[in-house]
């Protein structure tokens, strides 16, 4: 069973608008969460993370929100740029293990 789910396989957004990528998880023991960005033929690269003791973390155009009661994580990108077009993976960790979602392919339209 998938412990981390990204239910939207793809998302298209106009340049300059907000991109919102969502992630749901099932295990309440997860205590940290991360977002990775992946371009074709490359490995994922770290984007932003958040601890379970926080509900928001911001880094430039990227903000991650955590709603523990709903077991829901979201990544906001404002403003979206064409270079943001990539696959985004959310991941959740507990102890020594990370669990990844299946990814959301974001396309930012110029």
């Amino acid at each position: 069973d998938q412990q981390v789910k990204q239910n939207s396989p793809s998302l298209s957004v106009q340049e300059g608008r907000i991109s919102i990528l969502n992630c749901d998880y099932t295990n309440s023991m997860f205590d940290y969460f991360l977002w990775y960005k992946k371009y074709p033929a490359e490995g994922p690269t770290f984007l932003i993370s958040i601890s379970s003791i926080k509900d928001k973390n911001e880094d430039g155009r990227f903000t991650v929100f955590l709603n523990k009661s709903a077991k829901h994580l979201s990544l906001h990108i404002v403003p979206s740029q064409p270079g943001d077009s990539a696959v985004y993976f959310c991941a959740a960790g507990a102890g020594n293990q990370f669990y990844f979602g299946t990814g959301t392919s974001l396309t930012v339209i110029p």
Partner: protein
Amino acid sequence: DAGITQSPRHKVTETGTPVTLRCHQTENHRYMYWYRQDPEHGLRLIHYSYGVKDTDKGEVSDGYSVSRSKTEDFLLTLESATSSQTSVYFCAISESLGGLYEQYFGPGTRLTVT
């Protein structure tokens, strides 16, 4: 960019043959990981290492073994490859295991088992 290389980058092999993938790092990070990426499952942890000769199983370890005889090298072996092991394999490294941290990923190895 973190210094992580994977070899080979592409491999086609036949069912039943042994295959070894290599991950090499120049960052001297303690922790190393092997993941496989499949469209319907995302990235899944196969095995990880927390030091030389110290390894542990991940979510999908059946059919895979690993070895780490030096800090910089982490090998993933498929003793007898099966078609279900066709996938893209990523190695990752990190400095710390607990708390907030990031993993640096290698470029990936595309393995096809025919």
